[in-house]
């Protein structure tokens, strides 16, 4: 795909949000779409960090939670507009991400997943314990961004945020940092040897993706209006990872495909109850990983590749 096609895809999302909002959809369907935008931002940015920069951090939903609770905090305590949170919060979570990047520089192999996992766990415990501020498991409330029950503003916002995510991702992947990130992922020691500034690349990768996770969190807080520590549970992180992996880790549209597959599944199996939803999704994720190791996009790509080759082969034989 050419560069302009990638930007066209971003534009399609921006326009779709407006279109869906003006046509109007059932509230349940609108909720599904709006929360899917939240998951796309999360799974997409985690895919950038893990799939493209090779940094397997499990603090990602923790960062989204930091962004969501941070939004509630500044809205409640300082009366800051929820809109302003979209600007402030990504800066805040990017700073936390930068610190995680510094940690990532000091650890090897499985240590990073473990440490980031512990970070998220500790944060969840803190949110539950500091119940006089966070409301603990009862939840922390904040006023809605747009008063009333009309979902159209959130649908429009969803489209814009998804479009913004793809624009940022395009800028990263098509720029210098995109290539440098991938070199660190593929062969860190060779990258260092040829002069890549590993320090800078890791810190930038963590900051950019943490900023996006924070943006997702700010959106979530502004939309849902009540936050509980369950938003950074282990199963939430597992869900985000599953989305990226099912679609294709390290593929530009991997998270998008994963979000569509998993969110649709969730929608159709929701009648069985929440606990079964997770079991079914885990089973599907396992099947995809077993049969298409590099995710759905790569599997479809190979199928197409093969049919093109077969056609060429056939026409070569015929002539």
């Amino acid at each position, binding site marked *: 795909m050419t560069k302009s096609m990638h930007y066209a895809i971003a534009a399609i999302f921006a326009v779709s949000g407006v279109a869906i909002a003006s046509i109007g959809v059932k509230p349940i369907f609108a909720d599904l779409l709006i929360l899917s935008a939240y998951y796309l931002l999360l799974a997409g940015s985690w895919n950038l960090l893990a799939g493209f920069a090779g940094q397997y951090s499990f603090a990602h939903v923790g960062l989204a939670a930091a962004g969501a609770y941070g939004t509630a905090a500044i809205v409640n305590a300082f009366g800051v507009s929820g809109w302003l949170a979209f600007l402030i919060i990504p800066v805040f979570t990017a700073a936390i991400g930068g610190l995680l990047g510094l940690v990532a520089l000091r650890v090897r192999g499985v240590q990073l997943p473990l440490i980031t996992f512990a970070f998220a766990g500790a944060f969840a415990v803190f949110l539950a314990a500091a119940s006089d501020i966070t409301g603990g498991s009862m939840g922390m409330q904040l006023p809605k961004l747009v008063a009333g029950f009309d979902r159209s503003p959130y649908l429009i916002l969803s489209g814009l945020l998804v479009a913004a995510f793809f624009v940022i991702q395009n800028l990263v992947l098509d720029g210098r940092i995109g*290539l440098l990130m991938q*070199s660190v992922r593929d062969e860190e020691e060779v*990258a*260092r*040897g*040829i*002069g*890549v500034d*590993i320090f800078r690349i890791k810190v930038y990768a963590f900051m950019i993706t943490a900023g996006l996770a924070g943006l997702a969190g700010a959106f979530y807080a502004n939309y849902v209006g009540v936050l509980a520590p369950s938003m950074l549970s282990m199963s939430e992180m597992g869900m985000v990872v599953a989305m990226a992996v099912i679609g294709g880790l390290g593929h530009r549209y991997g998270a998008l495909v994963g979000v569509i597959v998993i969110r649709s599944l969730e929608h159709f199996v929701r009648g069985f109850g929440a606990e079964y939803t997770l079991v079914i999704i885990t089973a599907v994720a396992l099947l995809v990983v077993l049969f298409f190791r590099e995710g759905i996009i790569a599997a479809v790509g190979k199928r197409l590749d093969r049919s093109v080759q077969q056609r060429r082969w056939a026409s070569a034989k015929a002539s």
Partner: protein
Amino acid sequence: MKAIVLEAAGLQKAFGGNRVIDGVDFRLTAGELVALVGPNGAGKTSFLNLISGQFRPNAGTIVLDGHDVTGLEPKAAKRRPLFRSYQNGGTFGKLTAVENIAMTGLVRDMDRKTAETRAAEALRRVGLGPVADWPAERLSGGQRKLIDFARLLLARPAVALLDEPTAGVNPVIMEVMRSIIAEMRDAGTGFIVISHDLPWVFGLCQRVVVLAAGKVLTMGTPDEISADSRVREAYLA
């Protein structure tokens, strides 16, 4: 008198108690090509790793293009005049052939578009144009070595260190490599080339340095080295 582009003095590197480079002095002038030969495990690659900054020496100094670079990381600006290739190709598996070569431009502050344009030219020059958009992991070992070699064309360095560039490469491409190296050498680049293909590298170099067990065993012209029985013994040791 030609300018000295690289000077190493008293270089030492040990891993645990194992001294892999044990007191090496080395000097390279502009436009000079030195063949670095010696048995497997002699420390040839380790010597390049010290010069390129990938290893930190335990003792000794390295002066590159007039600047003391001892202990500096490979990313240091003072190391820009240096290029090195890798024994196993040093490619990034998921990146395409073009992107792999463009990396060499990026770390020299080239913008991505310029780097990729020049990388594509470099690829065509070594005969890999048709696989420009293939990920390196789908290429053969010889093709990956060729990608690594083509990076040299983007770097245009003062000093180039090549680690067994011809291993696994066919004779036609070896000839392409020979002509590119000769051209850059004559334009003033100083080369250290490790190779087990003695006829090929002796045809390019002015001087041969024989490394054995981390020490310089002997050095001389290709003719002198060919006649030296100690060299044969070192290879068989």
